[in-house]
């Protein structure tokens, strides 16, 4: 173990890194869901087989989502520097990073949501329609509650993906385990620091994964208990 690693630990840099990674991931994911969830609902509902087909709108949203999803994150980040400046007043640091992560994650979350909602049994939706439910009521009383376990699994997957993106925060002056691995480890040839960061990231991912899946499983009423 190198002296630098011990110093990093003693000064609380590593703990700070863990915290920043978690902070970046959860705040970005939360904001991404604020925009992505309604977008996913819109994609599902306006689909040609959806409960309120608006095909032109569906096509437009679909194309925009696909464009954003096909841009690699590093490039998207650079391209969106001015956007971050516009939204949070700076193109540097964790604040700016959250804007980038949200931009990258919204289309992803929208598609995740769409695929969860499309799993809902068509017959159940038909039954809700037969009982005189409006489109809006079907969305929040049938689609979302029925898809809840699947939506939660989607959220876990999204969190892990966003956590992966957050490792790039160092490039624009943000923090987190990714930044520590690159700046303190890789660039100073202290590979034990890199590996410690990898290990810590794996632990964070495992915790999110296991805990998230546990909640998803517990909430699913289709499983006999």
């Amino acid at each position, binding site marked *: 173990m190198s002296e630098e690693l011990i110093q990093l630990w003693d000064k609380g840099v590593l703990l700070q890194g863990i915290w920043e990674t978690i902070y970046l991931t959860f705040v970005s994911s939360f904001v991404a869901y604020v925009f992505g969830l309604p977008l996913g609902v819109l994609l599902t509902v306006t689909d040609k087989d959806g409960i309120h087909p608006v095909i032109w709108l569906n096509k437009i949203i679909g194309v925009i989502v696909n464009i954003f999803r096909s841009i690699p994150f590093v490039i998207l980040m650079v391209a969106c520097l001015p956007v971050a400046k516009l939204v949070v007043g700076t193109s540097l640091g964790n604040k700016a990073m959250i804007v980038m992560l949200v931009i990258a994650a919204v289309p992803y979350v929208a598609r995740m949501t769409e695929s969860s909602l499309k799993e809902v*049994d068509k017959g*159940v939706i038909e039954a809700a329609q037969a*009982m005189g439910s409006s489109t809006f009521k079907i969305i929040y*009383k049938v689609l979302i509650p029925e898809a*809840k376990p699947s939506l939660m699994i989607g959220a876990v997957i999204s969190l892990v993906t966003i956590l992966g993106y957050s490792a790039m925060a160092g490039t624009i002056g943000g923090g987190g385990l990714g930044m520590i691995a690159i700046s303190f480890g890789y660039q100073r040839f202290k590979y034990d620091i890199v590996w410690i960061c990898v290990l810590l990231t794996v632990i964070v991912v495992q915790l999110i994964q296991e805990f998230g899946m546990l909640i998803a499983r517990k909430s699913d*009423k*289709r499983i006999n208990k």
Partner: protein
Amino acid sequence: MIEIKNLTKTYRTAKGSITALKDIDIKIEDGEIFGIIGLSGAGKSTLVRCINYLERPTSGQVIIDGKELGKLTNRELLKTRQNIGMVFQGFNLLAQRNVIKNICYPLEIAGVKKADALKGAEDLLELVGLSDKAKAYPSQLSGGQKQRVAIARALAAKTKYLLCDEATSALDPDTTRSVLELLKKINRTLGVTIVVITHEMKVIDSICDRVAVLDNSTVAEIGEVRAVFSNPRSDIAKKLIMPQGELPVTSENGKKIRIIYNGNNSSESLLSNMILTCSTPVNILHADTKDIDGKAYGQILIQLPEDESSERKITAYLDANNVTYSQV
């Protein structure tokens, strides 16, 4: 009253248009159990979905209690649907809600207060005999129990009409019988008008007052169940009563006669009397008859003894008793 007037439904597909329903005219009176029977692909599921406008007819009208559905605004249509319950072959319960919350769903939609909704739901749960399952989730119920919950849910908003789309087709015979009894009870005690869609004769037999036989997108026959099935005029009605068609002749030896039971000659024991009167033994090769409201339908294939005199005696007996038969 549900009036279906001159209703036609066509689907446009890439390969041209498909006619699912053509010139349907049906009037369903309040308080009756009306059956719609047909083979798969006859258009019955489309027809039942036109009654609550889940499917919009291409032309024609659906009039419920004097209101023409096609002329309603979307909001009015939703309101009208709240008065028409529907149950499905696949139950379609909300998997993430427990039984009592499933039954509350239509009441939530109608804006009923939570306490009142819960009270109403509990009463219905008692009616369908599942009071002990209020907190259970659909995945913990059997098929029959799920359908009972679905029926309770369909009735929760004090619905006047109940549409059943193959409601018993996924159930075993015992469960089917008990669900049908429940439907009959609901019809008698709550006065709910029930429309039953099915491909099974026994469903029509056991609960329906009137029946429409659907074939090839049109109504082939319509009337009292007894009248339609004691004297089926359309080929499709005959086919539904004798699902196997004419029984095949398998044995080569001897003279054979096919005796047709078409509801006229069932009260007396035809075959026994024939044997006793003619004092001739016959061999039953194949038999398929069923009793509908005390009348027999179906056919029996018998093999006669080799000698001509007994054959003459038997045909004479059948002629004398006005029995429909054919020599094969």
